[in-house]
């Protein structure tokens, strides 16, 4: 069984690097071309609002289908079976929240960031500072997840076991990402995401058909083969393999499910993508395209996960470098040898690169636009170029943090890390966003209590959860300071954040109903919304 894992290490690193290098070279050309028209803040943050709905929809799926989706979910299904499938369903159904409640209204009211929507009604400086804080926090967790994925992939595909070698590769990935963001702005980043989405979906589609072809295009025989090569037998197809062990772990599953479905519409890098299209109707079409592509992709991962269990075997996957994250690359090697492995590895690297670039431009926009221009400079920035300059500096800092974080965060399951980012987004961002769009009494204190309360509660509960200490799989396995039983805090933190938003609002005498009338008219009709920039 171990021969496969070893031959993987000895695979063909030169081929893998060459294919990845071609991707980087190709995207760099496009990014430099895109940079020619990037002049104003609207160009840099929102690509001049000139992308079409379908283009933006493909870019959204490129932004959203992270290494966690590809490597993490396929691995979770291969090793834990059915319980890994929940991630896919939660990640997909969540898009209905964005489609029905958030996307169009956000496009009509805001300009560049989530803070814009909140600042519409409330006192600018405190809510922008809060929105930037939670944006940074979500981006940080998400970045950590992507970089952890990069670390695992390096050891898997290049056979680099040494700390120094892995660190150098992560640093190279970070440096390429910084160039994308600095040079190309949102336009360049968007094109990178579009290309990556195309490659990822095409690559997984080929593998899916290939896997199904091996089993006579019969899903049932595929599942049967997965069961035969798994030690747990039939339990691979039934729920409960990972989360069914105790009452606590069942609650954990519920908590995870809620965080996944409510997190998406609060993810700042997803929200920001809605500003890159000219109208709310295009924002709607973007989401429709995104739902179609993301849904298709998750159906593919189901086949790939069980395919890896059937053709590679759960034990081989667990013992491979990179553990469960190795399932999809191992399956590619089993199917198409070194060439397909090289392609899939390059796609996985490209995935990490594109998602990290999207996160970085979002976090840097939030800092430059919300904190620098509106909190520090009180909205009196000398020129828009000044704001963009700050955004570029911030992008470099975030890139550096991502590189260091990636080196430190190896060996965590990336799907789990992303689930934590979703818990923060669902707790700190979504309640405030929904109240702000739909509740006329909502005010500044409610927004601050909900955002800071939700963020603090989520992080405190994570720190004192079994994910951080007190269990064998924890980040700090030697210490035990856990008192909160669940690994995912969403079950407690999301309702608490909704409650805090309500409580803070009714305890404050501030009334903003006039502003709410204006916001409601604008959000529903698009009157006075930001228009596309003609070049």
């Amino acid at each position, binding site marked *: 069984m171990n021969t496969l894992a070893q031959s993987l290490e000895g695979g063909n690193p030169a081929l893998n690097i060459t294919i990845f290098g071609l991707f980087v070279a190709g995207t760099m050309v496009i990014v430099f071309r895109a940079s020619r028209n990037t002049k104003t803040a609207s160009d840099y943050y929102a690509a001049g609002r000139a992308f079409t709905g379908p283009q933006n929809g493909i870019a959204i799926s490129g932004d959203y289908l992270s290494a966690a989706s590809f490597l993490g979910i396929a691995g979770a299904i291969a090793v834990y079976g059915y319980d890994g499938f929940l991630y896919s369903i939660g990640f997909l159904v969540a898009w*209905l*929240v964005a489609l*029905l409640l958030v996307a169009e209204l956000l496009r009509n009211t805001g300009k560049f960031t989530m803070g814009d929507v909140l600042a519409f009604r409330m006192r600018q400086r405190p809510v922008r500072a809060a929105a930037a804080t939670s944006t940074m926090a979500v981006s940080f967790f998400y970045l950590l997840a992507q970089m952890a994925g990069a670390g695992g992939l390096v050891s898997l595909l290049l056979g680099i076991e040494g700390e120094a070698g892995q660190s150098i590769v992560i640093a190279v990935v970070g440096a390429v990402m910084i160039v994308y963001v600095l040079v190309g702005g949102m336009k360049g980043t968007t094109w990178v995401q579009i290309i990556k989405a195309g490659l990822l979906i095409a690559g997984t589609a080929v593998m899916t058909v290939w896997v199904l072809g091996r089993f006579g295009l019969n899903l049932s025989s595929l599942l049967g083969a997965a*069961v035969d090569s798994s030690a747990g037998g039939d339990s691979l*197809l*039934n729920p409960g393999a990972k989360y069914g062990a105790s009452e606590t772990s069942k609650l954990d599953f*519920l908590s995870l499910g809620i965080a996944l479905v409510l997190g998406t519409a609060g993810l700042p890098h997803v929200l920001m993508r809605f500003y890159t299209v000219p109208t709310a109707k295009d924002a709607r079409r973007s989401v429709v395209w995104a739902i179609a592509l993301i849904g298709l992709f998750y159906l593919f991962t189901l086949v790939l996960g069980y395919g890896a269990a059937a053709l590679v075997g759960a034990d081989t996957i667990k013992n491979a470098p990179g553990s469960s994250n190795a399932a999809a690359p191992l399956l590619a090697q089993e199917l198409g040898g070194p060439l397909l492995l090289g392609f899939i590895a390059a796609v996985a690297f490209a995935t990490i690169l594109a998602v990290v670039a999207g996160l970085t431009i979002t976090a840097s926009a939030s800092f430059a636009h919300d904190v620098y221009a509106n909190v520090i400079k009180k909205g009196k920035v000398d020129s828009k170029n000044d704001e963009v300059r700050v955004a570029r500096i911030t992008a470099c800092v975030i890139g550096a943090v991502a590189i260091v974080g990636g080196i430190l965060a190896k060996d965590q399951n990336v799907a789990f890390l992303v689930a934590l980012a979703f818990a923060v987004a669902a707790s700190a961002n979504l309640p405030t966003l929904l109240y702000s769009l739909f509740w006329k009494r909502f005010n500044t204190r409610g927004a601050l209590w909900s955002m800071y309360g939700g963020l603090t509660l989520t992080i405190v509960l994570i720190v004192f959860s079994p994910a951080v200490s007190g269990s064998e799989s924890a980040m700090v396995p030697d210490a035990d300071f856990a008192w909160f039983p669940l690994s995912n805090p969403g079950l407690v933190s999301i309702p608490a954040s909704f409650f805090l938003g309500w409580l803070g609002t009714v305890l404050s005498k501030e009334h903003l109903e006039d502003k709410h009338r204006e916001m409601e008219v*604008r959000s529903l009709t698009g009157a006075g919304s930001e228009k596309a920039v003609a070049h």
Partner: protein
Amino acid sequence: MSTTEPSTHPPGPTSWAEVHSSAEFRELRRRLRVFVFPMTAGFLSWYLLYVLLADYAHGFMSVKVVGNINVGLVLGLLQFVSTFAITGLYVRYADRKLDPLADKIREEVEGEAR
């Protein structure tokens, strides 16, 4: 490009409050909410039901339907189907019932400024 601080008055002579209390705008808001709120409640309940079944009804979810395909897999795939269906329904509804009215109000608000 507008300024960072949103203007408190629309481009035309009517105020935001007047537009807000107009019959047309009230109808637009009613149409949006009458679709979006029940639909959200619906798909969230259906999703929660699925999660609870996967969590607490292992026996039921493990019942084989065809070959190796069990109830859990069928219900999971039905989540995909319902998501695609709701997306299609909303797009159709928005095209027919929301967009024409929203466009009309927006043109009235913005057009008066010219």
